[in-house]
């Protein structure tokens, strides 16, 4: 399901126009992003938690060419599904 379909689905559920839903969705996503940028953890009950993790630099070896590469340190977003979401996924 892509973004458009999702917004249509959401607007149907909320009973609002797709335009407003799209706007709100963008605002929500922007809010989550800015919180993650500040290295905050966004945890939503019944869904899961978005958190940022710092990864150290490391050396990566291409097994085919044996070429070694130095991967720089980085900050990544991690999503941890909550037990409720896990169970739902499992039962599926």
């Amino acid at each position: 399901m892509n973004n458009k379909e999702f917004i249509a689905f959401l607007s149907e559920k909320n009973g609002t126009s797709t335009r407003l839903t799209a706007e709100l969705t963008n605002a929500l996503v922007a809010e989550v992003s800015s919180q993650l940028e500040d290295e905050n953890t966004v945890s939503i009950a019944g869904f899961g938690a978005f958190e940022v993790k710092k990864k150290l630099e490391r050396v990566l070896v291409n097994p085919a060419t044996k070429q070694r590469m130095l991967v720089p340190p980085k900050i990544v977003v991690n999503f941890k599904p909550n037990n409720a979401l896990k169970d739902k996924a499992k039962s599926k």
Partner: protein
Amino acid sequence: MEKKISLQDLADALASRKNFSRREADTFVRNFFECVTQCVVDDKVLKIKGLGTFKLIEVASRESVNVNTGERIVIPGHSKVSFAPDTSLRDQVNKPFADFQTVILNENTPLDEMERTEPVTPLPVADFPEETDDEDDLDISVDDVSIVTDDVEQAEEHDEEDIQSEATTEEVKPVAADTAAENVEPQTETATEVHAVATVPAAVSATATPAVQVVHKGISPWFALLYALVTLLLMGLSYYLGYSRILSLNIQRPKTEQTRVVRKKANVSAAQQQKAAAKPKPKPSPTDLYPQVPGGKYLIVGTRRVHIMRVGDSILKLAVKEYGHKDFAQYIIVFNQFPNPDVISVGAEVKIPELKENK
């Protein structure tokens, strides 16, 4: 920083952003995540612009062991939710490290060793390799010195050396024998000697000095000592060369100055006895004629007598017998210029120097 943001916080922020009532915002956020859950579970893939992609991934069943009972169990296959952030979100979060890029390492980059040594460096052990490096440098520099002296040798074979320089080098030789006793003294002496040996061909100094400078780059504490050693080596070598020439072939000398010729003649006539060389007609100072102990209280002004070593004799004993103290052995050693004063064969002639107090 590192706060925990809940659904309510998100709703509040959204309400303030969009001029919404809090209750409406709250229901929207709740609905949003409910929808996400539903969509993921139903459609297996959900892509939200600006946030990322949620996916339902199948996990195959696998065997495992119950940790408590040791029983073999089969974990049944199931699905789990995975999330891959959108590029825009990824970049936004990674902003502090955005400038870093993956670098392809060269084949010969000794990275494993680098990584291994890096945690070790705080330890004091890390100081030792540096010291050994210094020693290596020293070794190398000594090699260089020998090369330099070779150059000098060649240069000197082409040139006729005058007696003046020989006399001065003769004096310097004992300084070479006495290596580390007095660092400052030999240095100052040799500095003056360098001027005295200005008659030595310019080629010598041209070859010698640059090499010496290269050698001592970066090892300033050793500079003084090494410089002194180098110059002393040069002097000693030139002395031997010149001396042997006097003894063997002594005819073709530039007859520039009368006095030199006279002195050379004196050397030739008494080739077997060094003592004779010490008595030329134009009375030179004893420091020119005899090797001197650097920084010594006494000057060697002549030969008192010649002692023939017998079994049980030693230079220390001789010194005690002749001068009353074993410290005078230094003068005997310097005067005779033993290559190895620790080993002197029975029957060897040891010249006992006549000493005069140095004023």
